[in-house]
């Protein structure tokens, strides 16, 4: 946690209100997101109780499982979920742009569907649902399968798996948790764990008593604001749901509707809270670099669409060595670019980087033209900057800034003032080394003038892409060789998707 966030949290405690920690919105927010509020049955993995889902705040679709241990009812629920979610996911598949990548014209979807869940455990639950569905076989795929899944359920499993996997990429926005989104933009006076309670988090932001929201119960002992799920409150389970389920099991007329109403009472407040969060976030203008990151999400969506169209098998249970390394590398790049991008988009974020000594802002007090040596001398002007910040600078360190054109200019620290360690402003002498064009004189706008206010960062603005990793078939001996060639007694290779999976153990 940065010093400024700590300060914001302390101020939030004193004011009793959340404090902003961002001046722009750092994540993409779709104009038509799909909100999914799932509930799960206690004591059993991936046994959904119900969900509220839809794209219209005023018309949520309520799906319930009246007896979560009944597999047929569960399949029925998943089939109905697929009926709501798949048309939404597929509605973006055919509206495409073309983009030039490495000299090739490629098709990319113009926009992508976005799923919002209330909290981080909701993201995990989407992953779990995807995992439980994607290896299922339908009667059409395999007439002999003993418990065929409804037609579109495995497909939904593959989409949810893709979305949950993409959610692990820093800065991605295909699947977002509302608590994370709000927590990125506001600091509350409670712990980050407590921020996972969406109701309490909203109470900090819009005013209200967060503790009352979190703990307040009515005369019958039920929470006034149910938790954001997917877990339910034990008091609800024990006193209300258990009885209703018993009546349903006994076949008492009307008991099914009773369960539906009970689940709706737990889901609706969270549903409204997610949409309230959407409203709050829409008031913030998106950061300049947000659309670029969303482009990555569009590519991700397009890639999965293409894999489905090509008839590829479902995502394997485990990544092979190359896929794991590739994912880790791309997420590390995404993390570095996200951290840089948020700072460049948002002066408040940049301020915390400056406080941490990773960036500095100041006023130009002098510019001296100089040329590089060599056969074709290039401009290497010296810029003297006066700053109140305390960056960790040593001669030779690289610093970067964004030009008006959006390009990045790199400079090298030549020296820091003799009083560099004392209080008060210090001078930094930098030699600009790039971003001035190809000519002998710097391009218009690339050379600062005395009096200009500049902000340099010590971190790079883009992450270098790593070297290509070997294909899985060329996995070296150090990593066990190609997955298919692993010896029988050696470590188990990453499993290929099982073509005839009958049961899917979690």
């Amino acid at each position, binding site marked *: 946690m940065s010093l400024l966030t700590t300060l914001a949290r302390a101020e939030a405690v004193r004011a009793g209100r959340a404090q902003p920690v961002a001046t722009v919105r750092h994540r993409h927010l779709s104009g038509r997101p799909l909100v999914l509020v799932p509930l799960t049955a206690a004591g059993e993995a991936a046994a959904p109780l119900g969900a509220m889902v839809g794209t219209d705040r005023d018309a949520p679709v309520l799906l319930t499982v009246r007896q979560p241990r009944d597999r047929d009812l569960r399949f029925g629920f998943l089939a109905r979920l697929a009926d709501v979610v798949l048309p939404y996911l597929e509605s973006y598949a055919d509206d495409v742009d073309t983009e030039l990548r490495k000299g090739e014209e490629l098709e990319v979807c113009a926009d992508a569907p976005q799923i919002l869940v209330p909290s981080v455990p909701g993201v995990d639950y989407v992953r779990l649902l995807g995992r439980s569905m994607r290896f299922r076989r339908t009667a059409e795929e395999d007439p002999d399968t003993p418990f065929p899944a409804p037609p579109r359920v495995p497909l939904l499993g593959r989409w949810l798996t893709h979305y949950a996997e993409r959610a692990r990429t820093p800065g991605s926005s295909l699947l977002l948790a509302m608590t994370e989104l709000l927590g990125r933009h506001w600091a509350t006076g409670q712990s980050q764990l407590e921020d996972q309670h969406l109701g309490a988090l909203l109470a900090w932001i819009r005013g209200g008593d967060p503790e009352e929201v979190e703990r307040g119960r009515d005369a019958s002992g039920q929470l006034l604001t149910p938790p954001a799920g997917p877990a339910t409150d034990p008091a609800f389970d024990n006193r209300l749901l258990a009885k209703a389920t018993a009546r349903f099991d006994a076949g008492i007329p009307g008991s099914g509707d009773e369960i539906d109403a009970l689940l709706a009472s737990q889901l609706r407040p969270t549903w409204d809270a997610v949409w309230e969060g959407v409203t709050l976030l829409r008031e913030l203008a998106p950061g300049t670099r947000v659309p670029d990151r969303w482009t990555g999400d569009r590519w991700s969506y397009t890639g999965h669409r293409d894999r489905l169209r090509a008839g590829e098998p479902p995502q394997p249970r485990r990544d092979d060595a190359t896929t794991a*390394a590739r994912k*880790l590398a791309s997420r590390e790049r995404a993390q570095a670019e996200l951290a840089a991008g948020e700072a460049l988009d948002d002066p408040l974020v940049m301020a915390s980087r400056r406080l941490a000594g990773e960036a500095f802002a100041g006023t130009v007090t002098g510019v001296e033209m100089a040329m590089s040596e060599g056969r074709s001398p290039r401009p290497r002007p010296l810029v003297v900057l006066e700053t109140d910040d305390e960056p960790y600078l040593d001669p030779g360190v690289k610093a970067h800034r964004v030009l008006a054109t959006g390009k990045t200019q790199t400079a090298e620290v030549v020296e820091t003032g003799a009083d560099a360690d004392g209080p008060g402003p210090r001078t930094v002498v930098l030699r600009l080394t790039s971003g001035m064009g190809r000519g002998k004189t710097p391009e218009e706008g690339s050379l600062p003038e005395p009096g200009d206010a500049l902000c340099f960062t010590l971190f790079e603005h883009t992450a270098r892409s790593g070297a290509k990793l070997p294909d899985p078939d*060329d*996995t*070296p*001996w*150090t*990593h*066990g060789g190609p997955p298919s060639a692993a010896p029988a007694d050696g470590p188990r290779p990453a499993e290929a998707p099982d073509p005839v999976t009958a049961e899917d153990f979690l």
Partner: protein
Amino acid sequence: MTPTPGDAATRATDEILADTLHGTARGVVVDSPPGAGKSTLVVRAARELAAAGRRLMIVAQTNAQVDDLVDRLATADPGLPVGRLHSSDPHPYDRVLDRHAAVRKSAKIGDLAELPIVVSTAAKWAWVKDVDPWQHAIVDEAYQMRSDQLLAVGRLFERALFVGDPGQLDPFAIVGSEQWAGLTYDPSTSAVTTLLAHNPGLPQRRLPVSWRLPHSAARLVSDAFYPYTAFRSGTGPGDRRLALTAASDGGAADRVLDIAAETGWGLLELPPQHTPRTDPEAVTAVAGVVRRLLERGAVAHSERSADGGEPVGPDRIAVGTAHRDQAAAIRAALAALGVRGVTVDTANRLQGREFDVTVVLHPLSGRPDATAFHLETGRLCVLTSRHRHACVVVSRAGIPELLDEYPSAEPVRLGVEVKFPDGWEAHQAVLAHLAELRVRM
């Protein structure tokens, strides 16, 4: 009769070289405790492999390590052609290498591929393609290399010698990697972990003698950080001596220096308090100890110094911290005292380096909590194993209590080998030893 340290080390080296040159296994793993002659081993193995006519590539982790290794190789054998594969950035390698006529530098592997030895970083090697695989590789600092980096270069060699220190800082990823925990090829784990998981039969050797650590430190570092793979010091009690020329002024800094000069260790303890990371009083205390050490004219007597000993100048002193801002604060404090030339850096950057005296700001000093980062075994191990003579630890009081309040709470994951000792235990072991050598401010 136990063999002398020299004999034990020679025998271990001979076995390693025999495995490497004449063994049948595709890989040999060598564990080396701090200062056990790892670089010497790498240079010797490289020369013998080259002499045997094996095309050799060497993989190190940082450019500084590569330059250091090439410099050592060229110094040991000025006639041996060595290739230094470097990046295309400006100033891609240390100018020191220009002194060696037999060292060829290039950013293109095509210029170097025919040389008997080519050295580069793992990151640069990963870009090499369209060349015949090397017959042999030496992977230096293999425990600091990530599994995914080895994956990217593994195709380049047929056999390899992996050398590293298992007690230092593990590699890390800046994003979560829990989803791969327990897989043999978890990309965020160390290269050696993956290598051994897939090739369990590879010979594993150990260098048994630390030539850097003094007798007073080897036992503690061995017990605290290498409990199942003990090593000993190459020097005996009394072989190393630190003498302070000027008398003590009776202050806390001087008293702790006297204790450290005599016993090899010292703990300067400040009153307990929760502080920001850059605790001003602790920073001042660290700077004060360094200043007094220089002012009092420390002289180091060791097996390799002349009769009168060697003065401990600023270049022979290091200050180690956990965080960069702490290092910056101490640098500023030293500059304000007019002290220049002392190395002040974080544990990550002090890895592999050696000094006469080190002053360490304890990673847990002044903290209200003990996170996995601050408890990491490797961090404390690096900080307390850089010295040839003495190590002074500066800390707020109350760390044993803090440790008791924060037992290790990292989740245990299926299939992940538990590392011993854990940081909690290592911290307790070091503190228990230091408690008897404590000076309170």
